[in-house]
């Protein structure tokens, strides 16, 4: 939920009753990067069933907004990738709107270093229109740690965010962690929980009332190595959070050279 955290977290830190503005990519990152000569194309579809109903600082409400985000990630080598995002929004009164774009380079600790956990570091820079986020230029750095053990999977993303242009440019660094725990029920079906939060300024944590807190029961379908399918329903209990969001991710990997290992 990176983009929403850029906007919402900073709003939460800047006004007493920050309210959710939008959710464009709701995903906890794993440490793995896209393989070289591979391209991953993902469509993130998020619908806010119950969210912010009013304009805040000129930003449109999220209530009943449908957000479609296209994410294209190209693997560079066995330890890096670059992702590119196109954010869009469709809602009553505004129609279909381009929201903004982000670019996200990422590096990881190569598997052959044989660390006991997966580790990668992502940084994301982007622009979004003021109609959807008062802070138009933002930057994020996201450490990623994950671990697979038997049927269990754990991931933690303690992300830090900074506004470069917008009302919160002087708000400092925001803290927006995300985490995931899941269990492989079968080879094809994995279920678990994803947690997203925005605590506001890292040096001046917002009150719980003004924090974003969201929990998504989610299902991953592992139908093919070339496809990524994920569904979830988010519950946001605090005032600053969209209360109900339905999210879905469908991804397709395109292999431009890598072959499946065979004898």
């Amino acid at each position, binding site marked *: 939920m990176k983009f929403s955290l850029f906007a919402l977290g900073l709003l939460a830190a800047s006004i007493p009753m920050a309210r959710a503005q939008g959710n464009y990519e709701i995903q906890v990152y794993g440490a*793995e990067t896209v393989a070289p000569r591979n391209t991953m194309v993902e469509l993130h579809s998020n619908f806010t069933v119950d969210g912010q109903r009013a304009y805040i600082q000129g930003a449109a409400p999220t209530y009943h907004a449908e957000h479609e985000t296209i994410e294209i990630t190209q693997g560079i080598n066995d330890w890096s990738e670059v992702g590119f995002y196109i954010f869009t929004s469709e809602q009553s009164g505004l129609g279909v709107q381009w929201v903004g774009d982000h670019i996200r380079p990422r590096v990881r600790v190569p598997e052959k270093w044989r660390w006991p956990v997966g580790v990668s570091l992502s940084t994301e820079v982007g622009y979004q229109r003021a109609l959807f986020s008062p802070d138009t230029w933002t930057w994020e750095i996201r450490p990623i740690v994950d671990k697979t053990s038997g049927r*269990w999977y754990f991931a933690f993303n303690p992300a830090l965010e900074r506004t470069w242009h917008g009302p919160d440019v002087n708000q400092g660094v925001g803290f927006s962690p995300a985490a995931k725990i899941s269990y*492989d029920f*079968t*080879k094809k079906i*994995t279920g678990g929980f994803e947690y997203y939060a925005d605590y506001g300024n890292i040096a001046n944590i917002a009150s719980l009332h003004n924090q974003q807190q969201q929990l998504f029961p989610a299902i991953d379908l*592992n139908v093919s190595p070339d496809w990524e399918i994920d569904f979830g329903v988010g519950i946001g209990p605090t005032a600053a959070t969209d209360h109900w969001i339905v999210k879905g991710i469908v991804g397709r990997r395109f292999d431009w050279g890598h072959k499946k*290992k*065979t*004898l």
Partner: protein
Amino acid sequence: MCRHYPDEADSSLSRTTSRRKFLRRSSLAAAGVLSRQAWPAYIDAQAARSVPQGARQTPDTAPDYRIEISEIEWELSAKKKVRTAAYNGRIPGQPIRLQEGKPASIEIANRLDHAEIVHWHGQWIPPDVDGSMEEGSPMIAPGGHSRIAFTPRPSGLHWYHTHAMANRDLKHGLYSGQFGPLYVEPRANPGLYDQEQFLLLHDWEPYYSASDDGSLMVNYAAGSINGRMLGYDAPIQVREGQRILFHIVNASATEPHWLTLPGHQFQVLALDGRPVPTPAKVEALRLGPAERVSALVTMDAPGVWVLGEPQASFRNSGVGTVIEYAGRSGKPQFTPPAALQWDYRRFADPVPASYKPDVIIPLVFTSRFQGHGALDRWMINGKSYPETAPVLLHEGLRHRLVFDNRSLDDHPIHLHRHAFELVSIKGAALSGVLKDVVIVEAGTVVEADLVANNRGNTLFHCHQQDHMDAGFMALFRYV
């Protein structure tokens, strides 16, 4: 004619040592002279200790060969060292050359802190010395030793290696440097070659990663031929017009490998040590784990070449060596073949023979998912070892083994103490190709005939270390 063993311990023996020198050296070794000189005194002190039941001890005579298993630091290249268990302080282990039908004895000392066992892969020898605890060979305790004796057969290219389980420890089993070449001289050797080169392929620094199908698999950070990464070992020196007989062993714990030599062709003479009916020429060799190929190459393209893995990721990781023609220099050249093709049928009888089996034994290979962070559990006929039901053999009868691979992986299937004859692959008949390891590709059926002629417990398993550790084994028993 000259012969080359990988990384000869005897520095007086160059890669181009003469056949006469080699034979003299072999006879000395056979008499225990060389090996005794190199043998640490503490081993002799331990000789008086009891040895595990099943091993045969003849302390009053020197063994033909001695193997000391110990941990070493090994230089794969100037920049990469590995700490691993190895035989006699070297990788690969010392070449062992025996005479078909002539009894031989081997003394094995285990200097590691865990039990070990040495398997004589490809040899038709009794189960108590074959080197598989599942068959009844005893493990060698830490600090202990064992002497075994057997009569080598059949002739040809074989190898010896650890048969210990690794389980999830990627330092043990065949992930380590415990392997070496075994060549059993045939009673008659026409010697239609000028040089003999032994090449043992291996992969190093294993780690777990996710496979394409979602299960855990083993990958490697480095590879080698004869214990050295490409570019680090001295080139193999050849002369134009020479015929080089390559004896190649894939000693990788899990990885299949291809090998190619640009501008040259391999004439395949033997597979798994057994001569093939049709010595066809191919551009590239494919070897699953534990497979062996003996192939003749005529040196008719002068230059400096990389003999290596055509797959760049493996070659860049070190799986290759350099062939240098006399009078040529410069950067080694490599161009991959247009296509990688391998078919056992190319080396089979021109017209397949038709056999009528006495017994048909279906063997269905499947796996059970254990989580994206775990290795799959492997099964034969629905059961994992040791729960797998023993397969019963009737002495003297022809058993048709039907390898039905219903999994998503290819498997190098190995049978101890016997060879089987391939009779069909994906429904196409063949005959004349005798092997002890065969690749059964995912979703295919391979049939092989086994004439039961070597009584005793016989282990049957996938030769991928991670698969056999996860239950892909069964015991064949004579009724």
